[in-house]
């Protein structure tokens, strides 16, 4: 480069200036609450500063002041689009700390409900992505599919969004009657809607142009920035906690984990689309193979007494009182339990001091790591590219800000 060229400053010569724009905290594209401070040169993003924390609700502090079993409602509110997965992660962490082995049927039901939650998370993410690119019908089709999944979850857990279903050493309730039939019916419609969504977008040139080769990141960078889940697999890195460190019953199941190749938004989209299919496959397999049996550990220290029991037996009643007021005592120690959440590795790092409340309950939020890499992904691209990239990163405010 010659000196003359180096000295030439285009912006100075043409008397233009950069525009600083506040995207958020409440901007249509920031569907969590997050703020981007974007410096624009025309339409090109020169610099971006991401500010999070608008949805901070002191998850850890609240957990430290709650009995071990009372943390579940809080974990619901982490990744609220796939809340059972957080329940499962926390339950597994605490069970690992205690050394509990849950019955096989419980593991199966946890897998089923967890995979349904993953579907719901992906439906939300992809639907919102379509919405933000203006494809409104596709969005509504996935909302409809998600409603069907939520109907099933509601019939099992009792709530549509914050399920609060899993307990230490088991689950709160059995699957309802006719659940298998309901799943078969809902999944038939889900597959239809999935294929409609797929036909509307996957080969559509407009959509391809918006997604392909946009917001890409190399595999090395992605690993360095702590990417996990669909965003890492989109880069072609074969990492999935379900395979790397199988928990529940994943090692007994037969399914495929989709991988991308370039790590751009389109790969993320395709990976998530395929994961929805695979989740349906997993649920169907589980329903087929599910054994009969109890759903809770047969250990009175950890199992809550059933209503009949607690009202009829005085020992059981006293024990129940102690368990609720003091909290069930978890042996001292520390443990880290990763599971594959909808967005990536959800890890619970739990420390106990032997008391009835968690001494420390840390959740490793996947979207926190993903969002921190936003400047890497969008700097130099156009303002309009920020939207699909941010959507495919899938910031869930509850999880990122906790």
């Amino acid at each position, binding site marked *: 480069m010659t000196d003359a060229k180096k000295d030439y400053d285009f912006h100075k010569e043409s008397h233009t200036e950069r*525009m600083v*724009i506040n995207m958020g905290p409440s*901007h*249509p*594209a920031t569907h969590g609450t997050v703020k981007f401070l974007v410096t624009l040169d025309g*339409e090109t993003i020169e610099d971006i500063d991401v500010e999070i924390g608008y949805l901070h609700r002191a998850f850890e502090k609240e957990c430290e002041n709650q009995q071990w079993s009372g943390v579940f409602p809080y974990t619901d509110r982490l990744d609220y689009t796939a809340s059972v997965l957080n329940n499962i992660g926390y339950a597994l962490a605490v069970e690992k700390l205690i050394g509990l082995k849950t019955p096989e049927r419980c593991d199966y039901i946890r897998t089923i409900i967890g995979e349904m939650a993953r579907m719901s998370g992906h439906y939300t993410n992809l639907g919102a992505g*379509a*919405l*933000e*690119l*203006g*494809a*409104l*019908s*596709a969005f*509504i*089709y996935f909302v*409809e599919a998600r409603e069907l999944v939520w109907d099933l979850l509601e019939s099992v857990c009792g709530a549509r969004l914050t399920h609060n279903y899993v307990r230490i050493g088991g689950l709160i309730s059995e699957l309802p009657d006719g659940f298998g039939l309901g799943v078969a019916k809902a999944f038939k419609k889900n597959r239809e809607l999935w294929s409609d969504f797929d036909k*509307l*977008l996957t080969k*559509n040139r*407009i*959509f391809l*142009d*918006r997604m392909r080769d946009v917001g890409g990141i190399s595999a090395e960078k992605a690993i360095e920035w702590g990417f996990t889940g669909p965003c890492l697999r989109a880069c072609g890195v074969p990492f999935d906690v379900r395979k790397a460190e199988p928990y529940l019953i994943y090692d007994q199941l037969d399914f495929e984990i989709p991988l991308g190749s370039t790590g751009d938004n389109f790969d993320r989209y395709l990976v998530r689309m395929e994961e929805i299919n695979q989740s349906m496959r997993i649920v169907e397999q589980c329903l087929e193979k599910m054994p009969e049996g109890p759903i809770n550990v047969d250990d009175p220290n950890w199992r809550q007494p059933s209503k009949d029991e607690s009202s009829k037996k005085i020992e059981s009643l006293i024990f129940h009182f102690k368990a609720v007021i003091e909290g069930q005592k978890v042996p001292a120690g520390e443990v880290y339990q990763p599971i594959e959440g909808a967005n990536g590795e959800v890890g619970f790092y739990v420390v106990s001091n032997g008391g009835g409340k968690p001494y420390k309950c840390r959740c490793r939020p996947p979207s926190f790591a993903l969002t921190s890499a936003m400047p890497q992904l969008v700097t130099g691209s*156009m*303002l*309009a*590219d*920020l*939207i699909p990239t941010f959507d495919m990163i899938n910031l869930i405010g509850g999880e990122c800000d906790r």
Partner: protein
Amino acid sequence: MITLPDLVETVVKIAFILGLTIGFYAPIIGWIERKQSAVMQDRIGGNRAAILGFTVIGLFHSLADAIKLIFKEDFVPRGAETALHRLAPVISVVPALIAFAVIPFGGTYNLWGHETRLVIADLDVGVLYVFAIASLATYGVVIAGWASNNNWSLLGALRAAAQMFSYEVAMGLTIIGLVMFYQSLSLVEIVDKQENFYHWGIIWHFPAFILFLTCAIAENKRIPFDTPEAESELVAGYFTEYSGMKFIMFWTAEFLEIVTISALCVTLFFGGHQIPFVTVSGLIDFLGFLGPNGANAAAMLIGVAVFIIKLTLLIMLQMSIRWTLPRFRYDQVMKLGWKMILPASLIWIFLVGAGILTGVMPAV
């Protein structure tokens, strides 16, 4: 010299067009947009606004919208250019209305000895007039964006300016083949020449129709070309800072432009008021049992009805495009306009010329 009957006739026609566009189509499009999109998306759509318990499948929602917006605060942001901020909606709504002046919505009928031609102004350069007027709408958008003192508005206005000017060029070129084919710039004449169904524009100029519709949607800034107002990127683009009555005017302008585009498409490609295989004189003869005046009046009503049906179908087509497709990125819009549509329309002009010279296309 304008005679009294001529004046009355013109006033009636203007009143009819105003009634049709502002009075009928502006609210009805809002309703179509809501209901059609809802049914397409497995929803029900707005059905709560009711008068005396009658909801009329949600038709009153447009009325409720209008009333709500009229009574909203008329807000001008601090630092905005007040006069221009107020002027911008007017500038964008007027061209959409007056473009209708040259669009024929019926044939020529002889009523009580008075020759009535169902077009407000039969200009020899009707096509040019429409394009000239349509390009004025850009001013409204740009002024709105600039005068709002808002970064989003400004970005939207800049995008709108570039996009609308680019697509005007392409849009003009897509029509040239048609003009060569019909050998006229007058819309009335073009419609008259489509009396023969085999001479309809859509039959000989299908590619031009696709290109024209694309350009027209881009002119109108609707999905997939709604980059200037992309709500997930620019909040609402150039009309971010508008509320109440001024917002209604942008809204109306958008709806009127849908009507104008559809009317232009009907006129150029779908034979206007013509019914396939039926000529106007044949229709009048067929209705002869009503007496000469009655036959003419009935034929006129049928013609207008056919025109409105075609118009509504085209509007619904535009709606289904809008609710199906995702949005382009701004630079891709420009690329599409300059690199695909412009060369394609030039090629089409060449092909039409060759077709006319070699006699493949019939002389009309």
